[in-house]
């Protein structure tokens, strides 16, 4: 059996394989370099960076749910200026494509972020706009005018491709089409799903403790794959598939549904080694199925 060609072109970026880290689950990108060979990754999507430093949300921030993780971190990060000063320099030495996830609450912040990142165009491969963080006061992708403004403003400034990370909190096909028309080069589907945990044991004379956040992990996989499938049939720009990938089979499913590449999040929190395991399993499935190139399987569920 011949080893499959895992390399793939994504919005002009040459990736040696389609498996990346997901934003917000892999720190700034280099912290676990002692645990896994980062060079094996298809690419790294950083945690979401904002213009100014963010201290994030109060405790509690996480809760385990059935087959998933509920979190409300609230984009804790050191801010773009500190980020380009040190973490980005470290990231650039890894030798894999780097995608910077950014977020803001108004268009002006995105513009500032895009300007600062323009000076790093040789280091970064793309910008991912986190338009769907469920832990901010307002989820940007619920406001189509704001979405359009953000994408258009960043596109004008950016010298690298711009990816929009979305969530199916509204009709996902309409949203994806809208984002495509606004000029996004690709979309990421899907972010965590708005969810909640209630600690009924904490209820006595006071209100029970609750955690409002976004849920990730295998519990959302069937829904995230459906988003990719529905969207793939309706748009022309490529998709980063994301949501509960735990093994190589899951990667194949996302790609069959229409994802050109995928990003792995929660699995890497459980163990960074899962990224390598997923890659190996993925390669082995393709080998067993005699698939010569990973490019053959993208969107195969929708081909006639």
């Amino acid at each position, binding site marked *: 059996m011949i080893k499959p060609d895992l390399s793939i072109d994504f919005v002009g970026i040459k990736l040696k394989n389609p498996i990346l880290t997901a934003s917000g*689950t*892999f720190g700034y990108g280099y*912290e676990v370099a002692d645990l896994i060979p980062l060079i094996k990754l298809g690419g790294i999507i950083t945690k979401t960076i904002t213009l100014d430093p963010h201290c*994030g949300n109060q405790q509690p*921030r996480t809760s385990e749910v059935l087959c998933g993780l509920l*979190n409300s971190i609230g984009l804790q990060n050191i801010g773009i200026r500190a980020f380009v000063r040190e973490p980005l320099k470290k990231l650039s030495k890894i030798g894999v494509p780097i995608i910077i996830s950014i977020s803001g609450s108004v268009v002006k912040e995105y513009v500032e972020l895009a300007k600062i990142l323009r000076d790093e165009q040789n280091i970064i491969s793309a910008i991912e706009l986190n338009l769907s963080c469920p832990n901010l006061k307002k989820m940007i992708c619920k406001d189509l005018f704001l979405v359009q403004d953000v994408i258009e403003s960043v596109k004008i400034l950016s010298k690298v491709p711009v990816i929009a990370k979305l969530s199916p909190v509204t009709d996902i096909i309409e949203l994806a089409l809208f984002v495509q028309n606004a000029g996004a080069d690709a979309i990421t589907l899907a972010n965590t799903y708005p969810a909640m945990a209630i600690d009924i044991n904490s209820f006595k004379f006071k209100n029970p403790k609750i955690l409002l956040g976004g849920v990730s992990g295998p519990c959302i996989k069937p829904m995230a794959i459906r988003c990719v499938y529905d969207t793939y049939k309706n748009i022309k720009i490529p998709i980063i598939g994301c949501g509960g990938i735990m093994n190589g089979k899951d990667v194949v499913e996302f790609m069959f549904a229409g994802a050109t590449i995928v990003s792995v999040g929660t699995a890497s929190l459980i163990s960074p080694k899962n990224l390598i395991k997923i890659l190996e399993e993925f390669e082995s499935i393709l080998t067993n199925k005699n698939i010569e190139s990973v490019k053959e399987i993208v969107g195969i569920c929708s081909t006639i």
Partner: protein
Amino acid sequence: MYRRLDKSYKVICNKKISTNYFKLSVKIDESIYKDCLPGRFFMINIPGVFLRRPMSIYHVKNNVLSFLYKVVGKGTKLLSNIKEKTLLNLLGPLGNGYNLKIYKKFNHVLIAGGTGIASISFLITKLKKGILYYGARSKKDLLFLDKFKKNWEVIISTDDGSKGYKGHITDLLSKRIKTEDVLYACGPNLMLENILYIAREKKIKGFISLEERMACGFGNCQGCAIMVNNEIKMVCKDGPIFDIKELYLNYNNSI
């Protein structure tokens, strides 16, 4: 940075040592042996629950690493069913561990509440003498009492009065604490808050071991953030041991 491994080890013991309390031992690699210090922890992969669980090091000797745990929920229940010779996946050692260097000449006063005794009793093995304050719910929750004899004064409290003082261990601590003491504490949040209050009031130095929910244990999930000295710190990476003087704990509003 010291060495940490993400690896499966053979379980060589997983037995009940008292009502609901278990001791788990695994045979580890020599390469991480010397970095298994008191106050550090491992993330343990328990088949059947989604996330790994953090667990303090209770003991390490001859490449055998041990943990002490109480069966409280689904995860620890499943863990208690794991048989000898099973391979168990662990990530660690993680965290900073107790700082034993800066207050060497002070009297060591250790305070353990409940399963906090795990990391505290490991710490005792590294210190020549001192006082151990040890509080638990009741007599049957007190562990290893026979172990701490030599050079160690052991002061006991139980919530129900079934052994030692009836009440909080911090009631006893506050009466006897002196400025030449350095505190090392591990236990439930209420106990730690009391210790912080006492230490601040009486200007006592020391360290406490914090617990916070963690999804990953190595800094990437950012789930265990707390405010330390006006800066955000991760309990898993920057802690779990923090200097008392930098902490302003309020568990309903910790950031």
